[in-house]
């Protein structure tokens, strides 16, 4: 591959920096053997590279002993839970999260009195746990409207917390949403 002199002289910096394709680099190298002017240009480029390297060598020389003192401490090793030293802690954390969620659901079922048919705890032992947490209906509650009695049956613990024993004074919070519209404040009525 033969190149014109002007083009080759422009390629000298790229040649020195290793930016040329192999074939073009060979052509420039071949040209340098015959052209003194380009050889001098290449020498100046190489000198600049060497000067830059030497400059950085001198300018970045560290204070003796300083580098060694800057070493950070190796990471702590967990002896109580060796699994934390490896990548195994992530599946363990996921398992722990599942256990916490499961226990949270159980607690909700126990204390919010979810209907037994909707609860994930359908086993007889779980049902007996719900039964013990459910208070028995009183005589006053037996005279309540059917809808209220159904509410008490489905949410025994919650209903005893929020509902008054007097059926006539049933708080709004205890009513199903469908009835709330009829029980809004008097100012909303025409």
């Amino acid at each position, binding site marked *: 591959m033969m190149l014109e002199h002007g083009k080759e002289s422009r390629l000298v910096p790229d040649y020195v*920096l290793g930016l040329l394709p192999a074939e073009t680099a060979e052509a420039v190298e071949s040209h340098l053997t015959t052209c003194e002017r380009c050889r001098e240009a290449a020498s100046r480029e190489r000198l600049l590279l060497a000067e830059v*390297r030497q400059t950085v*060598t001198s300018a970045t020389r560290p204070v003796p002993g300083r580098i060694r003192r800057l070493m950070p401490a190796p990471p702590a090793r967990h002896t109580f839970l060796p699994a934390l030293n490896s990548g195994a802690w992530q599946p363990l954390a996921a398992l722990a999260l599942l256990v916490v969620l499961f226990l949270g659901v159980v607690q909700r079922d126990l204390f919010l009195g979810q209907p037994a048919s909707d609860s994930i705890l359908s086993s007889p032992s779980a049902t007996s746990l719900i039964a013990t947490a459910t208070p028995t209906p009183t005589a006053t509650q037996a005279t309540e409207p059917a809808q209220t009695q159904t509410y008490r049956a489905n949410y025994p613990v919650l209903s005893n917390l929020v509902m008054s024993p007097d059926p006539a004074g049933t708080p709004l919070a205890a009513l199903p949403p469908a009835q709330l519209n009829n029980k809004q404040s008097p100012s909303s009525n025409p």
Partner: protein
Amino acid sequence: MTFPEQALSSWPVGHVAPDHDLDGSLIARCLAGEEVAYTSLYERYAGYIYRLTFSLLQHREDAEEVLQDTFEYAFRKLDHYDADKASFKTWLYQIAVSRCRNKRRRKWLPTFSLSHWLGERLTDIENPTPDEALALSGRQRRIWQALQTLSPKLRETAVLRYYEELSYKEIGQILGIPSKTAESRMRLAHKALKEVLEVESDES
């Protein structure tokens, strides 16, 4: 001369091929909990990382801080290092360059706006200690200051090519850019450096 002193005093002018077997052995010992292996790994590469960060940031305290950050992160994430993707030295350089970029971003306002617009160059070289002043000739000071005029992107490429003599593929891997982009940045950096030095030599 002990190994770390040797590593620090003789900056590798040519590219030194990393010893993958030794690195792999040290890394395995580190992961097994051997603290001496961490020290060996640090002493093997601290000099390279320090010179790289100092070249990029041109501030000694910042370079030392980034050196510590780099190895603290590398030690903590040693189990994530994948020898199939890159050599350990390349991986360390990736971390160091990233930390340098973060450092520059945090110091953007005070170092870019005022000092740059006033034409002042606030680096250690401007206020060298007596020992440091003797270490740099007039020509070397001009070259060091010329490097400051390069944008961070060009300076990163120039440092990795001029000093480490890494291939453009390796430079691209470290900087997270295609090798062709690394080549064009190097071309621009070299041209800019020459122009600055020519202007300064004309003025002097």
